[in-house]
C-alpha cells in the first residue's frame, strides 16, 4: 500500500463527521431562541469580552517546547542509526545532551519553569 | 473574669451604660453613639480581650430598632451581649464594628438587607440576599407582601 492511502483515511474521517452532522441536522429538533444562543456561563450573561488579551503564563513553555522539540527531531535519526555508529555516536550524543540539559538547568534556575 | 468584674470594668469605661439584672447572659445596653468606643475598648484591653464577635443581630421591636452583639473572648472564654437601640425606625443608623471585628461585614450586610439598618463606615454595604431593586426590608414588623405572606 502506498502513502496515498492516507488520502483515503482523510476522506473517510471527513465523511464520517460530515455525514453524521448533516444527518443530525435533519433528524434533530431545532428551536431557535436568543437565550439558547448565549454562551454558557452558569446562567449569567457573560460580563465583558471573552476574547481579551489575558495573561496565561504558558508562552514561555511554548518557546521552551519549540527548542526542545527541535532537538528531539535531531535525536530521532541518531536513534535509528545508533547501532551502526556505536561509540562515536554515543559520545556525540552525550555532548549534545549535555548542552540540552544545561539549557534546561538554565531555564530551571531562571525560574522559567514556574507558572507565575 | 467573672461577670461582676466585667460589669465593673464596663461601668468604668462608660458610666452611662445600663445593665439590667436577671439576664441569663450579661447584657449591656449601650447608647448607639458610644457603642464603637466601648467595643473597641473591650476588644483591645488585655484583661477582657473580646476578640471574637459571635453574632450580630438586628431586631425590630415594632417601636424601636435594636442591634445585639454577642461577643466572646477566645482567651478567657467569657461571653457578654451588647445591646444598642434607636427610636428612629425609619432610618436607623449605627456605627459599623467592621474595623474591630471583620466578621461583622456579612452580619451587617444581612441586617441592612433584611431590616434596613445602616452601618456607618461599612466598606461595602449592599443587599446580601435580595435583589438590588427590592423594595422594603422583609424582617421589619410593618413589611407587607400580600402575595407571598399568608396571614393566618
Amino acid at each position, binding site marked *: *500500500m502506498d*502513502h496515498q*492511502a*492516507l*488520502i*483515503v*483515511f*482523510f*476522506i*473517510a*474521517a*471527513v465523511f*464520517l*463527521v*460530515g455525514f*453524521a*452532522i448533516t*444527518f*443530525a*441536522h435533519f*433528524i*434533530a429538533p*431545532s*428551536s431557535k431562541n*436568543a437565550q*439558547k*444562543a*448565549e*454562551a*454558557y*456561563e452558569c446562567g449569567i450573561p*457573560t460580563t465583558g469580552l*471573552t*476574547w481579551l488579551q489575558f495573561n496565561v503564563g*504558558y508562552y514561555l*513553555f*511554548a518557546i521552551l*517546547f519549540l527548542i*526542545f*522539540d527541535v532537538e*528531539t527531531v535531531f*535525536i*530521532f535519526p541518531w*536513534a*535509528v*542509526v*545508533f*547501532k*551502526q555508529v*556505536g*561509540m562515536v*555516536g*554515543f559520545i556525540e*550524543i552525550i555532548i549534545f*545532551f549535555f548542552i540540552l*540539559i544545561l539549557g*534546561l538547568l538554565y531555564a530551571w534556575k531562571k525560574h522559567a*519553569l*514556574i*507558572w507565575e | 473574669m467573672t461577670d461582676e468584674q466585667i460589669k465593673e470594668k464596663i461601668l468604668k469605661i462608660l458610666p452611662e451604660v445600663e445593665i439590667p439584672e436577671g439576664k441569663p447572659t450579661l447584657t449591656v445596653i449601650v447608647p448607639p453613639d458610644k457603642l464603637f468606643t466601648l467595643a473597641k475598648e473591650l476588644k483591645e484591653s488585655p484583661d477582657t480581650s473580646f476578640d471574637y464577635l459571635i453574632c450580630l443581630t438586628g431586631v425590630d421591636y415594632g417601636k424601636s430598632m435594636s442591634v445585639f452583639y454577642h461577643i466572646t473572648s477566645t482567651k478567657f472564654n467569657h461571653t457578654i451581649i451588647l445591646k444598642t437601640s434607636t427610636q428612629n425606625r425609619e432610618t436607623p443608623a449605627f456605627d459599623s464594628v467592621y474595623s474591630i471585628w471583620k466578621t461583622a461585614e456579612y452580619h451587617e450586610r444581612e441586617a441592612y438587607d433584611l431590616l434596613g439598618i445602616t452601618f456607618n463606615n461599612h466598606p461595602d454595604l449592599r443587599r446580601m440576599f435580595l435583589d438590588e431593586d427590592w423594595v422594603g426590608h422583609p424582617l421589619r414588623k410593618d413589611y407587607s407582601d400580600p402575595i407571598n405572606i399568608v396571614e393566618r
Partner: protein
Amino acid sequence: MAFSFSIYDFTSFTQWIDKSLYAAMPPFWALIVEMVIIGIVFLGFYALLGLFLVYAERKICAFMQCRVGPNRVGPFGFIQTIADLIKLLLKELIFIKNADKILFNVAPFIVIIVSFLAIAAIPFAKGLHAMDFNIGVFYIMAVSSMGVIGVLLAGWSSNNKYSLIGAMRSGAQIVSYELSVGLSLITIVVLAGSMQLSTIVEGQRDLWFIFKGHIPAIIAFIVFLIASTAETNRGPFDLAEAESELTAGFHTEYSGIRFAFFFLAEYMNMFLVASIAATVFWGGWMPLHINGFTGFNHVMDFIPPIFWFFGKSFFIMWIMMWFKWTFPRLRIDQLLTLEWKYLLPINLVNVLLMALIVLMGWHF
C-alpha cells in the same frame, strides 16, 4: 490463488484481496476499490471500537466505585452506548451567537481526522495494517500532536470564558507532554534501531522490549504512559475539561453529535496511545516469547496475534482508566512542573542509559 488464510497471519489474506482485485479490473479502478474497502472497514472498526470503549470505561469505573454501571439496555447494558449514540444524534445542535462559526464547525473535524489518520499506521496483527511507514513512530507522533489544534480551535471559537481557559490549558499541556512522548519512544528506537513499526514488532520476536531493555525500558514505559495519558487529556490530567472548575472546558458549547465527536476522539486517542505502547513496549501482536523456552513459545503461539494485540492494548487502557478513577486532578502549574522538572530530565538521562546499554550489549 485460492482463498486461504489463518488468523495467525493476515498477509496472505490481504494479498489475496489485492491480487484478485487487480486481476478483475484495471489497476486504477482496483486501487479505488481497494481504498474504498479500507475506508469502510476502518470506519466500521473505528465506530465499533469507540462504542465499545465508552461502554468498557463506564463498566470499569462502576466496578471500581462499587456500582453496577449500565445494566438496563440490553444484556449487561451492552447496548447502552448505542442508545446514547442515538440520543446524541437526536439532540439539537446549538449555535452560539457570538461564536466564530467556521472554526466552531471545523474543530470536530480536526480532532476526528487526526485520530483517524494516526490509526492508519497501527499494525493490528501480522499483515494486518493499512500502512507500514519506515518512519512509523515518527509519523504517529507527528499526526497525533495535531489534535491539540482541534481542541484549541474548539475552545477559542466558542466565545466562552470557560472554553477559552480550557483550550489554553490544553495547549500548554499537550505541547509540553509531546516532548516526553517523543523521548520515551526514542529510548525504544535506540534499542530497536528502526522507526518502522513492523520492524519494531519483529525485533521483539524473542523478548518484548520492556523486558529486553532492563530498567531504562521500564522507565520509558512508565513515562510514556504518564505522558500519553496527559496528551489524550484524560484524568488525572483532564485540565482542559476540568468539570469542577470549567464545567466542561473546551467543549462546553458543543451539543449533540458535535460533542459526541470530541468524546469519541478522546477514546480513540486513548486506544491509539495504548496500541502504540503495546506495539513499541509490549511487542504488539507478537506473542510472549522467551528466548530458549521452545515449548513455552509454542504454547504462546497458539493464541492468535490479533488477540495478543487487543489484549495488550485493552490492558494498557484499563491501566489508564484505573488512573483516571483513582487520582484527583492536577493543577496546571503542577502539570507543567511534572513534565519539565521530572519527566523531561528523567527521560533525557534514560535515553543516555539506554544508549549505554545498547552500546555495551547488556540487553537480552
